[in-house]
């Protein structure tokens, strides 16, 4: 590029150089041409003037005849007495200034004046023939002669003779105020009237008889055929000219220097050249400007390319992040969704604990992904603050809830002090505020080994604004003075040696700092190394409702009590919700989440069916997946808005997608969605969303009071509820629990209501013994199940100390105890269930040997029932024909969507090989690597078909 540039510039410069040289040449030519033209012009001028001068001279010479003619006329009249003639002649002579007058006869003798020799003047003979003539003799002078007639014949000739010196004086000619040299010569080149300047060049080249210069000869030649001529002598820089004097045989000739004739003319030449030069300069300046411009353009071009490359790279990064996020979120979705299910439905304390661990780990993972995404947003400058109105207490609740757990895990004291008089509803970016607080608190918890974390929320109200002040003080390791600067740097982790065991990306504070700044807030750090740090965030938030939030601690405590177990936050049996997703599993998850809210859920798997359903039924909320084969979410939304008949016209449209990259939220809102929910969908998020958008009259909020008032009752209620649910919902995992078993559980539960600590111990022992017995029985009857039975035994064994430990805990409160017992009970139930399932599983899983059932089951909470259902839906969904169709039509876009779906669904049923193949095809379609598709399509399809046929025979 640079080389090319320099080469082209060289060419350009040499081009300009040549052009300038040409221009200069033109200027030189122009100058000479102009000179030539001017000289022509001046020659003409000189010629005209010299002709005028010649005429004047002719006139002057003719004047000499005037008086002579008068006398001649008198003399012609007849025979005059000689006396009379003399008298007349004397008067004539008296008037002839310095000339001698005479009257001569044919033989040359004079009647008056001096006799003249015929041979001296040719004019005498001519006059005797009747002519009036001027003749010249070098020595004698200039002679004017006139014939005097006697009748028809000529008798005398009247003459007037000027001597040479007198001639010189009398007929002196001035031309150009004497600046030019002019003389009168005759045809023999005798100088009749010489110029005053005798010692000039003129005489050298022009007037000398011996030396005829080139110019002179040329002029002479010209004079043979013309009345006047002017030539220019380059050598002498003068004009030489000549002109015939009227009737005489004399001519005017002379020279004049060029500069005298030119006078002002050369100023014009100068002016023209000056203008030309000016143009030349302008041209050069213009060229230079263009060159500079050109360079700039090239630079700009280069910068543009660079920018394009950078943008490409950035886009690649974004794409990568988007992909990664999508890829990671999809499994996390399953993990978290399923985990949530476990948390909701599982009453076994241990499993709930595990599940809670899973929950925290997965949310951790999600937060890391979110951190990276946030960071990429900040990097791209696309982090936006979306303000909404929110409940401060709810926000604090979430935060405290989250941190409390972490603090508890680390045995840290988590102290909370929240000003009671803070307003309850604020306007601001709830999500980001929460993120900021969590980040700071997380940090505090992370870097504090022992001691306490103090969370202080205060605020100053100023008109309509609340300056929220959040101080987080810890007794952690603190920050060294020299590290302060690095604190908010990207990927910076301070004191790495010491904090090696602390997990984190090192992005947290950087993101926090950026967010705070974007919200016009401040973040201050006070720290003493080894003692602790205090992070203080000040955020301005608008006040929506000034009502005081009251005693947060109190509220939180009660909330925590209720939080021990999951419960739906509300019920809305009259609400109708439509969920659209091509992935059956996602539908399943969402459907399950909403089960308890009694919301009427309708699902469908394509945009087209969504539109059909919307046309006929009135839904309150429509959850619409974005990436769908055929009509995607956005298109569906657009079409639904254009539909004439639409029962769900006023439905809230919520986008549902695993795309959680920069700007996605804004994109969906811009496309016309009312809100946006990212996968993995979390139960409480979904519920919040529902609560936010469902008409209030439909929502029956959860009755918290009951639970708080009487825990026993609520527990009982909960327990029975679960049982009830199991009865109601045949899709439920624990549906298979048999009636008698149910009864025992109920019985056990009834017992539990009244038993003491001691009794509980016994019961547990009894239970364990019973399980052991049962195990022995099973070993005998079913050897095949041996291994699994042993596993179960092991599990029970490991559980034993835990249960014992729990029982041993003397400070255990009833409130704490009960859930554990419930969990235990549940575990028992499950054990029984598992046995049941195993029996069936043998058949099904064996039949499914061609699938990675382990993986498949892992996606289905290890529930064979669920797995089967998933398999069924997989079979029903059968995209085989569609994929084939798209492949044949070479509709790679839809093909990609289909194989994408195939990839994830196949993975969820455990067809890992097919999933991989589909993934390969998806990437090929994305990269438009058609060759790869052609190469692998058939094989994949064959594989798919195989799986389908096998599944159809099994199910």
């Amino acid at each position, binding site marked *: 590029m640079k080389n090319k540039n320099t080469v082209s510039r060289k060419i350009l410069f040499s081009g300009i150089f040549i*052009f300038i040289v*040409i221009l200069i040449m*033109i200027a030189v*030519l*122009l100058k000479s*041409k102009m000179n*030539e*033209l001017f000289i*022509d012009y001046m*020659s*003409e001028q000189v010629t005209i003037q010299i002709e005028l001068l010649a005429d004047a001279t002719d006139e002057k010479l003719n004047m000499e005849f005037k008086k002579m003619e008068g006398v001649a006329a008198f003399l012609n009249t007849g025979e005059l007495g000689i006396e009379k003639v003399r008298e007349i002649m004397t008067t004539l002579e008296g008037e002839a200034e310095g000339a001698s007058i005479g009257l001569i*006869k*044919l*033989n*040359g003798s004079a009647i008056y004046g001096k006799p003249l020799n*015929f*041979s001296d003047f*040719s004019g*005498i*003979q001519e006059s*005797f*023939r*009747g*002519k009036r003539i001027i003749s010249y003799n070098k020595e004698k002078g200039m002679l004017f002669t006139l*014939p005097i*007639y*006697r009748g*028809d*014949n*000529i*008798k005398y000739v009247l003459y007037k003779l000027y001597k040479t010196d007198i001639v010189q004086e009398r007929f002196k000619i001035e031309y150009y105020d004497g600046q030019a040299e002019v003389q009168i010569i005759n045809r023999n080149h005798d100088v009749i009237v010489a110029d005053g300047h005798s010692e000039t060049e003129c005489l050298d080249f022009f007037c000398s008889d011996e030396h005829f210069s080139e110019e002179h000869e040329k002029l002479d030649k*010209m*004079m*043979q*055929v*013309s*009345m006047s001529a002017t030539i220019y002598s380059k050598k002498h820089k003068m004009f030489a000219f000549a002109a*015939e004097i*009227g*009737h005489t045989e004399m001519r005017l000739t002379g020279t004049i220097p060029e500069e005298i004739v030119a006078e002002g003319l050369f100023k014009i030449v100068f002016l023209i050249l000056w203008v030309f030069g000016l143009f030349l300069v302008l041209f050069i300046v213009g060229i230079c400007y*263009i060159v500079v411009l*050109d360079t700039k*353009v090239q630079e700009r*071009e280069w910068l543009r390319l660079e920018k394009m490359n950078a943008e490409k790279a950035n886009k690649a990064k974004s794409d990568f992040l988007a992909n990664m996020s999508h890829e990671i979120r999809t499994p996390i979705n399953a993990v978290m969704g399923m985990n949530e299910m476990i948390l909701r439905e599982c009453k076994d304390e241990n499993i709930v604990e595990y599940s809670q661990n899973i929950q925290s780990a997965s949310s951790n993972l999600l937060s890391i992904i979110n951190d990276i995404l946030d960071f990429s947003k900040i990097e791209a400058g696309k982090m936006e603050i979306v303000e909404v109105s929110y409940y401060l207490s709810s926000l604090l609740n979430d935060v405290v809830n989250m941190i409390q757990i972490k603090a508890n895990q680390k045995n840290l004291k988590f102290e909370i002090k929240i000003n009671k008089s803070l307003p309850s509803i604020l306007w601001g970016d709830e999500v980001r505020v929460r993120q900021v607080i969590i980040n700071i608190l997380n940090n505090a918890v992370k870097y504090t080994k022992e001691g306490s974390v103090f969370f202080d929320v205060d605020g100053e109200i100023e008109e309509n604004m609340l300056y929220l002040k959040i101080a987080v003080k810890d007794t952690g390791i603190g920050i060294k003075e020299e590290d302060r600067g690095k604190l908010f740097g990207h990927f910076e982790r301070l004191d790495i040696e010491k904090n090696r065991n602390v997990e984190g990306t090192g992005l947290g504070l950087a993101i926090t700092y950026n967010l705070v700044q974007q919200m016009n807030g401040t973040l201050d750090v006070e720290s003493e190394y080894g003692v602790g740090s205090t992070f203080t965030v000040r955020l301005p938030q608008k006040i929506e409702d000034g009502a005081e939030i009251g005693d947060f601690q109190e509220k939180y405590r009660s909330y925590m009590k209720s939080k021990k177990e999951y419960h739906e936050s509300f019920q809305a049996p009259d609400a109708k919700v439509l969920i659209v997703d091509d992935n059956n599993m996602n539908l399943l998850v969402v459907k399950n989440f909403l089960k308890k809210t009694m919301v009427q859920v309708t699902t469908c798997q394509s945009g087209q069916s969504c539109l059909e359903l919307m046309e006929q039924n009135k839904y309150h909320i429509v959850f619409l997946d974005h990436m769908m084969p055929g009509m995607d979410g956005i298109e569906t939304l657009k079409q639904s808005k254009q539909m004439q008949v639409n029962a769900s016209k006023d439905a809230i449209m919520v986008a549902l997608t695993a795309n959680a990259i920069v700007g996605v939220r804004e994109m969906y809102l811009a496309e016309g969605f009312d809100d946006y929910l990212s996968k993995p969908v979390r139960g409480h998020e979904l519920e919040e969303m529902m609560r936010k958008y469902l008409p209030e009259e439909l929502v029956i909020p959860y009755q918290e009071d009951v639970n708080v008032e009487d825990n026993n009752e609520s527990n009982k209620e909960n327990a029975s509820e679960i049982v009830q649910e199991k009865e109601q919902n045949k899709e439920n995992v624990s549906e298979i629990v048999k009636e008698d078993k149910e009864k025992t559980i109920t019985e056990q539960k009834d017992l539990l209501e009244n038993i003491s600590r001691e009794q509980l111990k016994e019961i547990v022992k009894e239970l364990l013994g019973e399980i052991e017995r049962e195990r022995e029985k099973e070993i005998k009857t079913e050897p095949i199940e041996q291994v699994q039975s042993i596993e179960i035994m092991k599990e029970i064994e490991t559980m034993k100390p835990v249960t014992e430990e729990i029982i041993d805990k003397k400070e255990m409160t009833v409130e704490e105890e009960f859930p554990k017992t419930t969990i235990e009970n549940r575990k028992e139930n499950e054990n029984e269930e598992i046995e049941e399932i195993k029996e069936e599983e043998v058949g099904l899983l064996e039949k499914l040997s061609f699938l990675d059932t382990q993986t498949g089951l892992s996606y289905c909470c290890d529930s064979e029932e669920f797995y089967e259902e998933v398999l069924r839906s997989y079979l029903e969904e059968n995209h085989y024909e569609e994929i084939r169709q798209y492949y044949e039509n070479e509709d790679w876009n839809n093909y990609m969507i289909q194989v994408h779906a195939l990839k994830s669904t196949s993975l969820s049923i455990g067809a890992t090989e097919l999933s991989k193949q589909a993934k390969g095809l998806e990437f090929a379609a994305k990269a438009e690597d058609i060759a790869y598709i052609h190469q692998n399509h058939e094989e994949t399809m064959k594989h798919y078909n195989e799986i389908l046929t096998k599944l159809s025979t099994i199910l």
Partner: protein
Amino acid sequence: MNQNKKVQTILGVIGILVFGVIMFLILTPGKVKETYTAKVGFILSGSIDEAGWNGMHYNGVKEACDKLNAELLVKENVLEFSGQCTEAVEELVEEGANMIILSSYGYSEEVKDIVKQYPEVMFYANSFEYKDENMTPYFVRMYQVRYLSGIIAGMQTMTNKIGYVAAMPNNEVNRGISAFTLGVRSVNPEAKVIVAWTRTWDNEEIEKKAAFDLIEKEGVDMITYHQNQPYAIEVAEEKDVMSIGYHQVFDQFSDNYMTSIVCNWNIVYEEVLQEFLRGKGKDVEYFWLGIRKDAVELSEYSSKVSKEAIEAIEKAKEQMQKSAVVFVGPIYDTEGNLHCGEKELISDEMLLKHFDWYVEGVEFYEE
């Protein structure tokens, strides 16, 4: 990049245009100063190859034109008073002639009415009969050599009778007869010149008869003529009579052929042309060149010409150079009237236009 190229193209085009315009301006020859070149139309009554009058004129005008770089357009065999002359003039004007020489005596009378139609064209007529603003006469002072040849005739004649075959009486012919007679009588006052009119410029039979008659009937022993062709000399040769030629030099004749009157027309035409080119065509009243400019001369003398005659000629010539010889008074006409007093000189005006008389000593042969 694209725009860049566009800019370059535009610049290139402008550059080329500017360059082209400038080169055009520079290379366009400046207004060449027009030198007035002559395109000479020449009308003659005979052929240009003819040995006599016409050939001489043609050669003269040719030489002058060549010398002064003039273009020559010739119209041959234009008979006098046949209407062909005006046609020839029209043709020549059409062909672009800006100067027309009418080399035959009668032409000026023929064209006298049409010259005014061509004010841009300068006419030069070999006749003093008619003159106009754009028609200037030209001729040679033939009379000077006639006078000189007269000296030979006067000296050589035995019979004192000299024959003169003349075409027709007009100023020119009359002047020639008179000058010749004056020359004869300047050395031989007894001698007579007998003129026989032929009334034609070129008729062999008539001219020969005239010469024959003069010799046979009048007994002249010297003959001269004023005709286009030397038929008279042929007769004289036959009759063994002395003769003097006219504007041609002959090799074929014997010693009886004394000399010939020669006109150097090239000198005349050169002068005419030069004056025309100098723009003085209209200023010059007439061109009448004489012995001083070598426009006329005598050819080599025959061995029969006596020394005395030659001496007398040289003397007269010398006199002619500086002053006047021929028409210097006293001159009497055939009637005995004094035409020019003692030491008077007949002016050119009179010689050219009013020569309707003959000097004393001229007689006419009548059949």
